[in-house]
């Protein structure tokens, strides 16, 4: 499958999970504009595991509202998180977000809105491809991470409700 096909499939399937997904030019200004637009008001919890080139976040990181090391109290209340994702999965519209030294884990799980930035070149065809030494330098075999497929959801209270313990809104930016 060509890279363009993979991106197309990824975008369609991610939208199918009710994530909001869009492509953005690989450029600090463009990314900054998109992140601030999607994030809306209030402080932003930003964590990058360097799976997407950190230089692309340079403009965004300068913003006063962006917190890379929020205090305990800020972490308890902050509503928007921005992280990078090291992999996208075309067949399911999922993203893979690391859980490691950088705070990508909490930024993508404590918040109500999670914005993930994914490199278009890091999209693989199927979930099983994440577990391969040959793909993405075997990243999927050597770290802790979550494969995130759409927003947090439950049907335990009867109807399907989005937004439970994890973010009820998931936005994915695919850098092209």
């Amino acid at each position: 499958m060509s890279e363009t096909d993979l991106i197309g499939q990824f975008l369609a399937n991610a939208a199918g999970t009710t994530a909001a997904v869009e492509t953005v030019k690989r450029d600090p200004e463009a990314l900054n504009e998109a992140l601030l637009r999607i994030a809306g008001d209030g402080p932003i919890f930003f964590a990058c595991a360097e799976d997407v080139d950190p230089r692309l976040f340079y403009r965004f990181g300068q913003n006063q509202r962006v917190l890379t090391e929020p205090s305990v109290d800020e972490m308890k209340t902050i509503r928007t998180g921005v992280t990078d994702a090291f992999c996208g999965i075309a067949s399911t519209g999922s993203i893979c977000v690391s859980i490691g030294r950088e705070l990508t884990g909490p930024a993508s799980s404590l918040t109500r809105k999670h914005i993930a930035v994914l490199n278009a070149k890091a999209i693989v065809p199927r979930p099983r491809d994440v577990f391969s030494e040959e793909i993405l330098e075997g990243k999927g075999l050597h770290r802790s991470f979550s494969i995130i497929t759409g927003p947090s959801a439950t049907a335990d209270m009867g109807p399907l409700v989005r937004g439970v313990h994890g973010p009820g809104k998931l936005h994915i930016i695919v850098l092209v």
Partner: protein
Amino acid sequence: MSERLLNDIHPREVANKSMKESLRKAIGMALRIESDALRLNTQTFNTNRYTAVGKLDDYEDLKDRAREIKESSIQKLPELIERLTRSVEARGGKVFLARTKEEATSYVRNVCRSFDAKLVVKAKSITSEEIGLNHVLQDAGIEVAETDLAEFILQVSKEQPSHIVAPAIHRSRERISKLFKEHFETAKPLDTGEQLTEFARDILREKFLAAEIGITGANLVSADEGTILLVESEGNIRLTTQLPAVHIAIAGIEKIIPSRKDFGTFIELLAASGTGQPLSSYTNILEPPLDLPVLNLNGRKDTRREFHLVLLDNGRMKMREDPDLKEALYCVRCSACMNVCATFQAVGGHAFGGECYTGGIGGAWTVGTSGSLAEGRFAELCTGCTRCVPNCPVRIDIPRLNSVIKNRLMKSEGGPSLEKRFFGNFSSMAKVASLAPALSNWINSLSPSRALLEKFAGVDRRRSVPPFAKVTLAREYDKYRKKNAPLAATDPNARKLVLFADVFTNYQNVQVGMATIRVFEKLGFPVTLSNVMEDGRSALSQGLLESARRSAARLAVYLKRLIDGGADILVAEPSVLGMFRLDYAKLLDSPDVSSVLRAHTFDPLEWLNSSAERNPQFIRRLEQKIKTGATQPEIFYHAHCQLKTIGAGDAATRFFRKLGLSVKTSDVECCGMAGSFGYKKEFYDISKNIGRDLARQIEKSIRSNASLRILASGTSCREQIHDELSRRVEHPVEFIDEML
């Protein structure tokens, strides 16, 4: 009215099914209170599963691979435990191998105490239910907050899980709303799904921020890396594993597989088979203790993360040594077997389940982990319909596990009851009854004899017992042959056809047998009739395994001879065909013989449809022959459960559609009669509950066409539908016979 009064019995009181009475009460409670929510929710999962696995283009290969990995992992389990221990310890984690539930709970309690923990957040874990962890911690003064919303509901209602993936599946939104309003003093509205979710989320968020320790289960654990797989949709597992500095994971030893590379095989299968999604919202792959800095949102000053892996034996090693129960260890706890099960859809895991394990697979798990055969009594609710078999991602023969439990239970309780002997020896009974069918049928219809039959053999008196034919199929066939000389084969190279004279067709459904012979001969395919022989179906359904094995061995020799002589065997009764195609592989000692039988036995419609697919001329010839009258008849076809399992469930539909007929089909998995199941007094209400579900679908079609023809291949399906609708129900061959 309070929940207690409304339910009149609390599910917990009857969770343990050691006593027959508990099973009976649980069935009554579930049918009265829980059935509607259960049916809606399980059928939604079931429909979604079919869609999701339909999108996996290598579904069958994935299942083979998953089975292979699980089989070999259980085989080398002791070695994997050692490898896993080394991997976790190398990263600074601790591993504790608990032989019993007491060892496991006391280890967890000690870890909690060593951290002076007051509050533990816990993600859904059936294994922790198995060991009764919450009680132990609470008795030690430690608060346990269940963070999965379904488990949160159960903590309030004090019920046991009714399903392994969706533990509160038995509760409708209305019943959750009522429960919360009674339990919580709050001004917040508690009516809609959103309101209930937000309310529970806010309570639990406070718990997450304050907890000192997080406890999870594990879907799988990889030995070489010490990686754990945790699948969820709410995000509570992510918080449980990231917020507190201490993470305790409790995993049954059967969850260990060699390498995390193998997770790739399981994650798509698990999500598709369980909730019917391509993937659940969060598939967490964790190498604890995590590199993530300690967050200390709880105000503590913990300096490093700690990880404890509690590996639980609690009967599993013994299951591994048990040639039959061992198979249950391959289970990946996806719940497909529950969602697809007609009985489970009607009564759920509070009746079809024990203290924590539920559904068809729950019997073996309950027996294995409790060490008590009697606690697995709910295995009696498995009708043997086999719908779980092709839907299990690791190909576990769940009905077989339940037959084994029924068999062992029967022996432990002093041999077969009169009821089991009655239902399990249909052949002998039929032989005697058919000596004077008129007399037998008359006696059967009398109310005193029905009362006796109910009292001593457990046959519910509200069921009409199918009458015995005045003349058996064997004799009817002889008469037919006297008038109709054997047909010469048009193709001398074609295999001969022999209709197997199974006991149901021979003694009760003679018209079906004769219609099969006439249809095939009218179409130019000569058919002869086999000897009448017992196949073992009725014995197997009662757990009379030795008797089933004896019948299978005798019959296999006979059928193999026919097949070696160039014959293909037609079987009009699907449950008997199911024996040849599925069960004989396990009942016979010789895999060669069972594979020959599997390849050369056919449902009549399956055979006709595949002939039509090979040879389109055949359909054109048939179209010229059929007499449908002025208006084309419209058909409602209910496919027999075992026909579906062997892949012949849609043959009749495809065949009739090739003839240009309009066919509607049911989507119920099984009619609920399931051989003898629906005749039994103790299960009559479940059977009727399932039968109503099927009848509703047929009634809907009848409303738009009053002259709808109702077709079903199974004798018990026909009985069940007739009992509900009082309308004629035919075998598809009878319908074709009439058209020709």
